[in-house]
């Protein structure tokens, strides 16, 4: 497996209860993450304690340097409640985790509705309010067209792939 060009990514689910990544990397003082270290096994919030009310994971968040790289778990971003929870989890990245550089990777997304666009617009506002940067990438041709029809391609920074998107920060 080729070594990634970018800083080691640490994948983790966004813990929707605590607002923290559930496997936030902890390194001894001065130690830097090693490139090409295998990604840590994914641990979702559902598996972290039987006493917690199970809540389905909707986002996967990785760190690439100081950029939070977000992947959507669902192929279809449709359902109102689902969109609300995705929005809440995205907003928590900014409001509670203090992230300023956020990359949304749509590689897994095959369909989204206009309600999802609304959440992305609100997310963009939040990131701008803290002088951060939000970039979208890996958007399918069909979904890219949705952004173009609505002229939201002028509002968002949309780049073809994750590599180009990471370099834009």
């Amino acid at each position, binding site marked *: 497996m080729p070594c990634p060009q970018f800083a080691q990514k640490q994948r983790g689910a966004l813990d929707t209860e605590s607002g923290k990544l559930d496997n936030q990397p902890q390194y001894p003082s001065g130690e830097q993450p090693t490139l090409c270290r295998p990604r840590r096994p994914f641990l979702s919030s559902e598996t972290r304690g039987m006493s917690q009310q199970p809540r389905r994971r909707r986002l996967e968040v990785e760190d690439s340097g100081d950029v939070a790289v977000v992947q959507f778990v669902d192929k279809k971003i449709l359902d109102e409640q689902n969109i609300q929870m995705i929005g809440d989890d995205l907003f928590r990245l900014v409001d509670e985790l203090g992230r300023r550089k956020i990359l949304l990777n749509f590689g897994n997304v095959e*369909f989204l509705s*206009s309600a999802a666009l609304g*959440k992305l617009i609100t997310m963009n506002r939040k990131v701008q309010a803290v002088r951060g940067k939000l970039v979208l990438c890996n958007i399918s041709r069909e979904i890219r067209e*949705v952004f173009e029809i609505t*002229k939201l391609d002028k509002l968002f920074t949309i780049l073809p792939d994750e590599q180009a998107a990471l370099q834009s920060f």
Partner: protein
Amino acid sequence: MSDPAGEFDIPSDLDEARRVQATIEAVVKTAFEEHEAFAVKMAVEEALVNAIKHGNQMEYEKRVRGTYALGAERFDVRITDEGPGFNPDDVPDPTAPENLERPCGRGLLLIRYYMTSVSFQDNGRTIVMHKLRNGSK
């Protein structure tokens, strides 16, 4: 094989809308190209959500009724809600610079873009739309 025509009568419930959407999607995919099926799916999704949320105001008891039919060259769908109705001309243009950052109001724009024709009846309570196969849209 999916029946190429059907009707539905559901409460104002988004899960019910998902089931209608899945049925229609299966029908459309039997005859339409992938990008055309995406277009129909988008339009039906937005129309169903509009009917439930904006028409019936999410009141579960209010019904959303509709019919659909796949013909040799086209797909027709009609969706009716029990809300107060609306004037489509009153919906602000979401692509206008002053509206671009509004988080809602894009459903109708997408429906009109993706379908070959869209019209309203009964004071906006009914949306009637069709999509031609291998059309320009």
